[in-house]
């Protein structure tokens, strides 16, 4: 075990898998010699050579298309899209091709690709370095969407994603790369190293896709979150004293519906938190599923704590970001009835 931050844990996953499987190729903008703008692919070119980890033209569509072709051939490419805000030029490739190839060809071809995508806010990145587009992918039949919240999960989930024979979008909450963040911008930076989930084995291990993690058990309300919001929610729970059960979804496709339903039936209350803007966000799906499956157990309206329905605004980062106080307010509203 070594204390790793999230970047190191992801790097360790890539390194371990590349070492094991020559069919794994890594490419993307600046991932080669430089090791990626967030350093997740650091040293991989040096270690595995130019043809196994290399830079690409600035062409997200081209990156994904190339990966699909390689995947159809029999390789297992792992590509990086530099920021989630820039994944849209590849959207058609992901939706119309990667997600549909197995189905439409009746298994003749498939796309065992992993698309790593730094996403989310909290870094003063303004409109185009902060967005959380996971809802756009969750709606796409044929894609899996995974979102880790800590170094241990990041490594185990990335390994599962790489080994998965279906296309996986792997959203990395970039605000968590180098330290914990609880939605309190004025707090001192909390390094990962003292966190229990920063204890990461050097070797390969897997966390199955579709299994949520109960971060904290509780009986007053179920809080559903993923990515950075897991820590925001935990901090909110700790602050306000409500005995909330916090579930880190870890992947939104496949979704651990059983864990969610079991918990909400028990607590009778539910708060959903995500960074993305609210309308049409993934919180809507979660709310609908909970409502459909727990209707008779619900004692208060399901609450959504999300980004506002505006673009992600640079100077208003902390007005926009759904911080702990807003999670507390929502939890409290569920308790008032």
């Amino acid at each position: 075990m070594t204390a790793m931050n999230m970047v190191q844990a992801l790097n360790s996953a890539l390194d371990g898998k590349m070492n094991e499987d020559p069919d794994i190729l890594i490419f993307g903008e600046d991932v080669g010699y430089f090791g990626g703008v967030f350093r997740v692919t650091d040293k991989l070119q040096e270690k595995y050579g130019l043809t196994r980890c290399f830079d690409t033209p600035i062409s997200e569509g081209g990156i994904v298309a190339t990966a699909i072709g390689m995947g159809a051939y029999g390789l297992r490419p792992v590509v990086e899209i530099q920021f989630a805000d820039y994944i849209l030029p590849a959207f058609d490739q992901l939706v119309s091709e990667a997600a549909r190839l197995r189905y439409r060809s009746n298994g003749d071809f498939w796309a065992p690709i992993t698309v790593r995508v730094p996403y989310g806010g909290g870094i003063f990145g303004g409109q185009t370095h902060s967005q959380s587009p996971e809802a756009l992918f969750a709606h796409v039949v044929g894609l899996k969407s995974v979102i880790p919240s800590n170094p241990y999960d990041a490594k185990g989930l990335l390994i599962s994603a790489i080994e998965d024979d279906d296309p996986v979008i792997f959203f990395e909450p970039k605000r968590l790369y180098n330290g914990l963040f609880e939605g309190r911008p004025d707090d001192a930076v909390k390094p990962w190293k003292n966190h229990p989930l920063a204890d990461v084995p050097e070797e390969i291990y897997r966390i199955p896709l579709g299994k949520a993690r109960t971060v904290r058990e509780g009986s007053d309300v179920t809080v559903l979150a993923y990515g950075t919001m897991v820590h925001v929610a935990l901090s909110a729970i700790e602050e306000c004293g409500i005995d909330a059960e916090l579930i880190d979804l870890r992947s939104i496709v496949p979704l651990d519906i059983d864990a969610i339903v079991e918990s909400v039936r028990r607590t009778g209350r539910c708060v959903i938190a995500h960074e993305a803007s609210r309308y049409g966000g993934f919180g809507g799906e979660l709310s609908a599923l909970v409502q459909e499956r727990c209707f008779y157990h619900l004692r208060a309206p399901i609450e959504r704590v999300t980004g506002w329905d505006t673009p992600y605004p640079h100077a208003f980062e902390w007005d926009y970001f759904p911080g702990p106080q807003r999670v507390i307010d929502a939890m409290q509203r569920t308790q008032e009835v």
Partner: protein
Amino acid sequence: MKNRTELSLYVPEPSGRPGDEPDFSNVALQDAGEQRCPDTLTPEIELRDMPYGLIRVLDDEGKAVGPWTPDLPADHLLRGLDAMVRTRIFDDRMFRANRQGKTSFYMKSSGEEAIGAAQSLCLGERDMCFPTYRILSWLMARDYPMTALGNQIFSNAEDPLKGRQMPVLYSARDYGFYSISGNLGSRLGHAVGWAMASAYRHDDSIALGYVGEGTTAEGNVHEALTFAGVYRPPVILCVTNNQWAISSFSGIAGGNRTTFAAKALAYGIPGLRVDGNDFLAIHAATNWARERALGNKGATLIELVTYRASAHSSSDDPTRYRPKNEDKAWPLGDPIERLKQHLIVRGDMTEDDYRELYEDCEKRVRASIREAEAIGTLGQSKPSVKAMFEQVFKEPDWRQIEQRREVGY
């Protein structure tokens, strides 16, 4: 301030519309045998004139002339002819089947049969083509079972794609034929990725990608070409310029300003412009690109100049937007006629032989379609509904399982 004129918006128009005489004077031609044939390993910088010429082998009499003449045995040509003839007949029958309501949709490749047939026979078994919907003759040349084609088209119980795809959007891995989709251009980059994978593995499989001339305007085509230029994988990228994209003439895709082969110059790869109705020229150019690829010199772009002789699809009526008889006026003729004529000139076939071949093709096509029809046409027979829920993922998740249960399968 010299030379200023009032600005105005220019919109290209074709040389003729319904009621006009067909006019192909704007199509840049060159006589058979005229275009030079450089060595396959020639640096790109010495090939920059190639996209503006036209590689042709068969002359007006059906003789093979010039430096591109490939050395092909008669049985190779006959196999090609057989595939082309069957494609033409199959297309006609299926188009009719569509009119009779036996299938929801159909697309013919009439006039363009030489392309898939010549390239299918030129490339190897382990090579992979990334086709459009007009490359049926590739499968015919590799003897893909015509009954299976019919089953796919009728979406019947034996449909190899389990009823999931519209007619003609085949997939046939074992025949070197990648899955087609309705989306234009989005598989060209897969061809490049495939070829990069092959190079990475030190394999000798090459990839062949196709787009129509209209589709060259899509961003993903540029992205594929960019990757092909940068990483030099063993891939052949083809533009089938059949002059039309549904109702839009090739000028709407930029074909009035330069050739589609000239797009190669933007990526520093060779661009060949080839008579797409000339089986021999297609073979020769494809083989040139293949040799270059296998010499580790990377990608080639090939424009195949041809003509869409029929409607865009069963939903289309070309008499609404182009002159009648354009196909008759097309200066590069009919690919089947031209190959037949060549075989006759060579002395490898007589008119009688051809009639026999044709009738044999007809018989085989008819028998296959009958077989498929016997299994069922659209709506009369279909795969089990459970196929709807399968292979969304390798393993279904709870959504497919629950929903399949809800439907009762």
